[in-house]
């Protein structure tokens, strides 16, 4: 027993470890990444970064079939990738407990959509647990594994950004539980081989399982009634509960930690105790619609917003508007929002992606120097998910699509086949390429595409905080392993025009990318350079005031270290990555930006 301050993700990981998890698999994705990062620190279990979420799910499922407790974690959209084995897990059921954590991102802090993954629990007909803070995240893990084993089902644990990335006090238990010894895989044709004849038998078992789970959750101690004055009763789960507590201080609560299937009798009993029944939930009316279908009158999305992350502010405002709260709290004084410059995320100084985007921005006629007329854009640049998505923002403006992991290559081919007149380039990172770009490239080669694919190989999964992947030669638990080399991989797929170019060599980059784009065959350009966050700074770079004519060309790199100050161009030495980058030195038309070495040579 110890008291610790843990994030939701740390608590989920520790909870799983203490509950005896043996195998864990994941692909990094905000806000879920730290779950596997934390598990990989325990050397007495196996934890891996899988190439993608589908593979992670399959690894988890295999481990479960072999009899051990296993865990798979991913961000909400990761479950789309893992959808196929996820559904398969539901119909075959498990042997060792199998827990699937999905970390949703209401408010889209770092995601392309805010899908509500609770629907997946209903779709797959499996139970779902939802913690409201780090303590609950820790506490529910032994339940999740136990439910999985007792009911022969995968169990979904749904977190959200505000749970995963909030720290709160956790009282931990007695340490790691020793689960029964691994019995190994037991042959069971009708359970594990989903031929139609077996699946026919399994489906009624799934339906029966759901009925048993519905009965089980009626008495589950994790679902609690918190008595209030009885005028207003609120059914809620997850972080929405914590927010609602701040706003409705007198209300009664039915706080559900198991939010699928719903405890219908408990809900009816609670509804009978209160005058007015509300449902407060983030995103979709998931619980509300089911409760209404029970014939119970509730107020939910009539007043709570359907989109975005909830907060005490938003709930309070909605409640006042709906007449559920009599007055606004006094501290809400009138405040006029000042107009201030925004501070959007940007490429780091010395980023290996900057040079490629500068070239694409130039070839695609995207960047506009102040005072110059805007040109018609050329090229179509299909994009992907990673740090390099920021290349879509000014001043580079060099990405035209971004849908989901690996989508850019397929999109590029689709545009070509649709007869698009502009040349088409797909830009994808190394980790994303290994995640789901490979199949797109195989498809493009097979179907005689002539697109160009640029793989930005920074040798890490940078966006989510530098996780290892099959191209880095290191496993999640820090062991050395074989490296999947991109060049032979791409050649093996059947691409003949393959170039490998240094990320900080602008001249070669421009010539190579131009050559590939305008060639008549499918081409791949691998742009190689380590992530700037992992590189050491070297040598100073400065502007020679006598030579600089303030043409502003260097500003078009979008480098945070270069700025315009009282009409002068200044390079901030505390930010600049130095000679190891020197992109600005290479692009200055007047040779006014110099390295210390240049200066010494003169």
């Amino acid at each position, binding site marked *: 027993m110890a*008291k610790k*301050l843990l994030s939701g993700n740390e608590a989920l990981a520790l909870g799983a470890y203490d509950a005896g998890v043996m195998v864990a698999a994941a692909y990094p994705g905000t806000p879920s990444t730290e779950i596997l990062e934390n598990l990989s620190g325990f050397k007495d279990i196996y934890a891996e970064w899988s190439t993608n979420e589908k593979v992670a799910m399959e690894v988890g499922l295999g481990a479960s079939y072999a009899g051990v407790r296993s865990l798979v974690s991913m961000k909400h959209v990761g479950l789309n990738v893992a959808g196929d084995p996820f559904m398969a897990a539901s119909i075959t059921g498990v042997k060792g407990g199998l827990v699937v954590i999905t970390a949703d991102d209401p408010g889209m*802090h*770092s995601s392309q959509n805010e899908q509500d993954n609770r629907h997946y629990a209903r779709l797959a007909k499996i139970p779902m647990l939802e913690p409201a*803070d780090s303590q609950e995240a820790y506490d529910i893990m032994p339940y999740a594994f136990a439910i999985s084993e007792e009911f022969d089902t995968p169990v979904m644990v749904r977190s959200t950004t*505000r749970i995963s*990335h*909030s*720290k*709160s*006090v956790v009282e931990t238990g007695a340490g790691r539980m020793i689960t029964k010894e691994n019995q190994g895989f037991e042959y069971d044709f009708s359970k594990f081989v989903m031929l139609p004849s077996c699946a026919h038998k399994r489906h009624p078992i799934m339906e029966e399982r759901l009925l048993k789970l519905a009965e089980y959750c009626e008495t589950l101690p994790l679902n609690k009634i918190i008595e209030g004055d009885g005028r207003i009763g609120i059914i809620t789960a997850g*972080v929405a509960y*914590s*927010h609602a*507590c*701040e706003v409705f201080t007198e209300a009664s609560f039915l706080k559900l930690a198991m939010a699928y299937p719903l405890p219908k009798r408990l809900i009816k009993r609670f509804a009978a105790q209160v005058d007015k029944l509300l449902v407060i939930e983030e995103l979709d009316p998931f619980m509300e619609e089911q409760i209404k279908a029970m014939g119970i009158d509730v107020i939910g999305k009539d007043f709570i917003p359907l989109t975005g992350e909830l*907060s*005490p*502010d938003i709930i*309070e405002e909605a409640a006042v508007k709906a007449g559920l709260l009599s007055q606004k*709290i006094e*501290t*809400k*004084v009138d*405040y*006029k*929002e*000042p107009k*201030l*410059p*925004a*501070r*959007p*995320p*940007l490429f*780091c100084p010395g980023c290996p992606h900057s040079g490629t985007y500068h070239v694409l921005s130039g070839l695609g006629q995207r960047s506009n120097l*102040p005072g110059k007329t805007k040109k018609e854009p050329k090229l179509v640049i299909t994009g992907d998910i990673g*740090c390099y*998505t*920021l290349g879509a923002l*000014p*001043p580079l403006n060099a990405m035209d699509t971004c849908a989901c992991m690996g989508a850019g290559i397929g999109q590029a081919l689709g545009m070509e086949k649709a007869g698009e007149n502009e040349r088409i380039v797909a830009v994808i990172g190394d980790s994303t390429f290994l995640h789901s770009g490979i199949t797109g490239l195989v498809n493009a080669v097979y179907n005689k595409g002539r697109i160009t694919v640029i793989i930005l190989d920074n040798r890490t999964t*940078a*966006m989510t*905080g530098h996780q290892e992947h099959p191209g880095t030669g290191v496993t999640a638990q820090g062991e050395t392993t074989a490296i999947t080399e991109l060049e032979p991989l791409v050649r093996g797929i059947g691409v003949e025009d393959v170039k490998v170019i240094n990320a900080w060599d602008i001249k070669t980059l421009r010539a190579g990318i131009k050559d590939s784009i305008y060639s008549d065959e499918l081409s791949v350009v691998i742009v190689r350079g380590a992530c700037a*966050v992992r590189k050491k700074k070297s040598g100073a770079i400065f502007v020679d005031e006598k030579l600089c004519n303030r043409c*502003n060309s260097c*500003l078009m790199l*979008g480098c*945070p270290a*270069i*700025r*315009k100050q009282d009409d002068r161009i200044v390079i901030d030495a*505390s930010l600049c990555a130095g000679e190891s980058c020197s992109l600005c030195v290479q692009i200055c038309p007047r040779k006014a930006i110099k390295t210390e070495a240049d200066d010494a040579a003169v």
Partner: protein
Amino acid sequence: MQPYNLIIAGVGGQGVILAGNIISDAAMSAGYDVKKTDTLGMAQRGGSVISHLRISEKVHSPLIKRGEADILLAFEKLEAARWVSWLRPGGIAVINNQELPPLAVSLGEECYPSDKEIMAVIKSRTKEYYIVDGAQITTGLGNIKTLNIFMLGCLSRFLPLGENVWKENIAANLPQKVVELNMKAFKWGGQAILHKKTEKKNG
């Protein structure tokens, strides 16, 4: 103890997250309930970073309602102006007197607000503000990376946590070789506030 709601604001790379973690650890080790949440967006570096941190006997939501923060600890001036509306009227603003221009300003497309403009925004919300030269002082000490601990030194003058609690939790969160320098930064932060308080008193 009265409940404390803190907003910590700054720019990615300034050590905002670690500062919040240390405050949380310190408050927990003093026996309080704590919840802390960060909003990072997509940026590794260079974007706006804000943490909500709540200390009380029992904390429910990790998010502070707008207009209910007791203290704003701002690592950068523009971010101070951006988040000051979260303070309750009369709440305390501790602001590091440092200017980090966002990209639109570097590109010459927008202007960084003048000190006068920033102070007008701050003063419209509170008169309890303290402007400290954290960047300058920590650079003088030998490393601007100690800015976050300097800011904790400032904050320590407004929170009822003992000096030992602060020092233990700072040491526990930093590599051994930088602890000594950071302890200096912590001390200088505290003194910067004492100095400002005396100035205020003497008008």
